[in-house]
């Protein structure tokens, strides 16, 4: 009888461990999907930024430098690399806007307006992807942190996922306040 109870308890523990492990995997896949979403948006924005740089060619000598500084977005990046590309694109975007403000002829051209609209659109998709990524990371981190799932997470090598950290957030906030 005692053996039967022991076996039942063991079976239940194993079933729980399998269920928890599967849940972690599902959540991890969701994080990967969200990250892929961000990458797609970044690649799209990279393309649009390249077109923008082409459009402003001839208006400024800084253009060459801007283009060289733009890091190519690709799929399969780590969170840190994604963050680096994000920050880099933000910087180039700001530069493009500054140049646009300095050349009214440029800003009034249809091509420039169209590219700005595309940038706005990709920014919206990027913002949605980032929020989705953070929501999924939050769910995953919560799932592996609570007891007794935390034990299974420790045994199966599930580590907390990284949030995207916007290093320039404070600087952006200051600019907005100004």
């Amino acid at each position, binding site marked *: 009888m005692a053996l039967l109870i022991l076996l039942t308890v063991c079976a239940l523990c194993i079933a729980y461990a399998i269920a928890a492990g599967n849940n972690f995997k599902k959540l991890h896949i*969701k994080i990967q999907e*969200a990250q892929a*979403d961000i990458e797609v948006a970044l690649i799209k924005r990279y393309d649009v930024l390249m077109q923008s740089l082409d459009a402003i060619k001839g208006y400024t000598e800084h253009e060459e430098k801007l283009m060289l500084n733009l890091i190519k977005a690709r799929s399969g990046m780590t969170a840190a690399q994604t963050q680096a590309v994000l920050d880099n694109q933000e910087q180039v975007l700001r530069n493009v806007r500054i140049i646009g403000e300095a050349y009214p002829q440029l800003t009034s051209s249809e091509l420039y307006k169209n590219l700005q609209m595309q940038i*706005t*659109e990709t*920014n*919206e*998709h990027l*913002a*949605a*992807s980032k*929020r*989705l990524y*953070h*929501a999924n990371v*939050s*769910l995953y981190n919560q799932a592996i942190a609570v007891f007794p799932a935390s034990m299974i997470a420790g045994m199966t090598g599930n580590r907390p996922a990284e949030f995207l950290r916007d290093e320039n957030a404070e600087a952006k906030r200051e600019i907005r306040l100004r």
Partner: protein
Amino acid sequence: MDLWNKDAEDSLRKLGNIFLTGDMNTDFSFSSAKDDPHAEIKNALKKKRLYLAAFAFLPAFGGIVGALVMGILHLFRIPVYGRLSMTIIYITAIFGTGLTIRVIKRWRGQSRDAKAAYDEAIMAKAVQEMMPGAVLEPDGCMDGMELYLRGVVPDFDDFQGSYLIRYEKNGKACTFSNLTLTRREKDRNDNYYNKAVFVGQAYALRYKSRMRGTVRIMTTTQLLGREILSGYRKLDKDQEEKIETENEIFNQQFDVYASDAHSAFYVVTPVVMERLLAMKAKYGSFGLAVSGERIEIALCSGYYLFEPPESYREIETISVEKSKGEIQQMLLFAQCIEDAVNGKRTEN
């Protein structure tokens, strides 16, 4: 004696006022065509109230007639169960039934005529002034089944509504109507009854968007601490998934279902969440579906907009301006929804 007569007269007048105007201190009177351009409509609606009061008085009137007949029978020593008395009772009953039917018929006819006059002189004018080119169908309504399939209203067996308005905004077709959805349910004794599961307004709007997926947002219904969909259409998991946003307060007050998580996060931005929470606090529960350029909203307000008033006090205030105010209210809500869904744009 004189004082008693005055008191009795005053009491009778107050009693009549309660039946006719709903307020014992307000005397019933017809509007004068001299002072009021809408006197005809107001008087038609007031007549409707007169018939309603007459209908309420009929049982009392029947009782008085019955008592008189019995008194006369007794006075002339005619046996109550005799042939003559039974004939008199039957004639009285037939006369009473005929009178009741006539009052009901007149009341229905009066209601129909008053509403037609109100729609033509007040509503049609207000709609044209507020939304030039809009089409008003006073007896039309939006298709409840279509709204159910879009997932913004709960399951129902029958639907009806009023004041279907088709208008254009920024070159895009929009629709509005009042809507009531009823479901046949069984009571404890296994008798069927019609339960209103939705009373309010439905909107179909179009806005500029490049969105591809479908997102449904509904005010959350909780039963014993558990979220339930309370009759809303539920799709298979491979077609639609429940989305948990990063905002806990929003998650507690709204259910979000979407064809994919990205679409949900694209539509439900922090600004949109804030605005939807504010709208829930102001207007009450609603269901909202966004897909592509389409937005469908069903606002469960519990009342109808634009209907001709029933109460005497409100009849007195009928005017095109008042109806225009109601149309303004309707357009404001539509704008609120559009702004809320477009929140991501104003955010930048």
